[in-house]
């Protein structure tokens, strides 16, 4: 638990640094550091699959894509046009509501929490016998929750199609040698 507390404190420090920092290149790098800290927290919580995703997507690909975007739009943060009091108030109210909402959640690693008493015992006890896959995360993701993963894959596909629709130069299609 101590290591998680230390990592979460570091993450809060990185978040403050992101808010204060005006150089967008530093902000992107700090975002990568934040993702790596999050991945380490997930390893400490024994959620290695999620940690792997966080490290590769959050710290790896996202950083590269944001740096690519930064190259297109310049590395300095523009001066705000108006005083940010209203957005600040909205953010504070939402933060307060979220913090209030956490009071209603079950305690950390409470075995009687609804998420641990509903379908999880069945997955944990029957997954190996029913699917023959020792990694329960894979069994749940691809088999028990196959519909959800199909939806997820479709969301990723839609994101790719959206980016193609927005960014692809139309002229390139007429280049000789393509589409033959």
């Amino acid at each position, binding site marked *: 638990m101590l290591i998680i507390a230390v990592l979460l404190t570091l993450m809060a420090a990185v978040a403050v640094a992101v808010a204060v920092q005006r150089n967008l290149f530093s902000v992107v790098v700090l975002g990568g550091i934040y993702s790596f800290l999050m991945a380490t927290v997930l390893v400490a919580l024994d959620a290695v699959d999620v940690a792997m995703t966080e490290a590769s997507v959050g710290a790896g690909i996202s950083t*590269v*894509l944001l740096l690519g975007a930064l190259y*297109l739009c310049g590395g300095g943060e523009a001066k705000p046009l108006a005083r940010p009091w209203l957005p600040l108030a909205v953010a504070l109210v939402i933060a307060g509501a979220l913090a209030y909402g956490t009071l209603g959640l079950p305690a950390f690693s409470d075995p009687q929490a609804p998420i641990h008493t509903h379908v999880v015992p069945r997955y944990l006890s029957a997954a190996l016998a029913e*699917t023959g896959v020792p990694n329960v995360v894979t069994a749940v993701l*691809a088999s028990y929750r*196959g*519909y959800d993963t*199909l939806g997820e894959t479709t969301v990723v596909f839609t994101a*790719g199609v959206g980016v193609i629709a927005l960014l692809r130069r139309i002229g390139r299609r007429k280049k000789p040698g393509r589409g033959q």
Partner: protein
Amino acid sequence: MKRLIVLRVVAKMLIPFMLLFALYVQFHGDFSPGGGFQAGVIGAAAIILYALIFGLPAARRLVPERLVETLLGAGVLLYGGVGLAGIALGGNYLDYFVLGRDPVSGQHRGIFWVEVGVALTVSAVMLEIFYLFAGRGHRFDE
């Protein structure tokens, strides 16, 4: 960055291992952490590293955009196709029990192909987004 010899040598040494690790994460996902999503991202990262070091045109020659766009749709189609195969063999949509001789081997087969579909779509989308972003500037077009 083509002229920096240290980067080129290190990248040439690293990229095969990155691709191999992607395959390991993909096909060992039944037994260890990982699966299609992570493997797709790691595989795309290897190609992106190649593009950063050797230039975007070189990466486009290696993995043409047309291939990337085909794989982008093929992954989802493969995933949906596994579901339809379940119907064709007399089960429900995405029902893996009917895909093999016995329920457990059917589950194995279903999970395997579904993960392949996820990996194809995820790696293709990551790569396509990178190509489109990088293709708008000229830094990578050395």
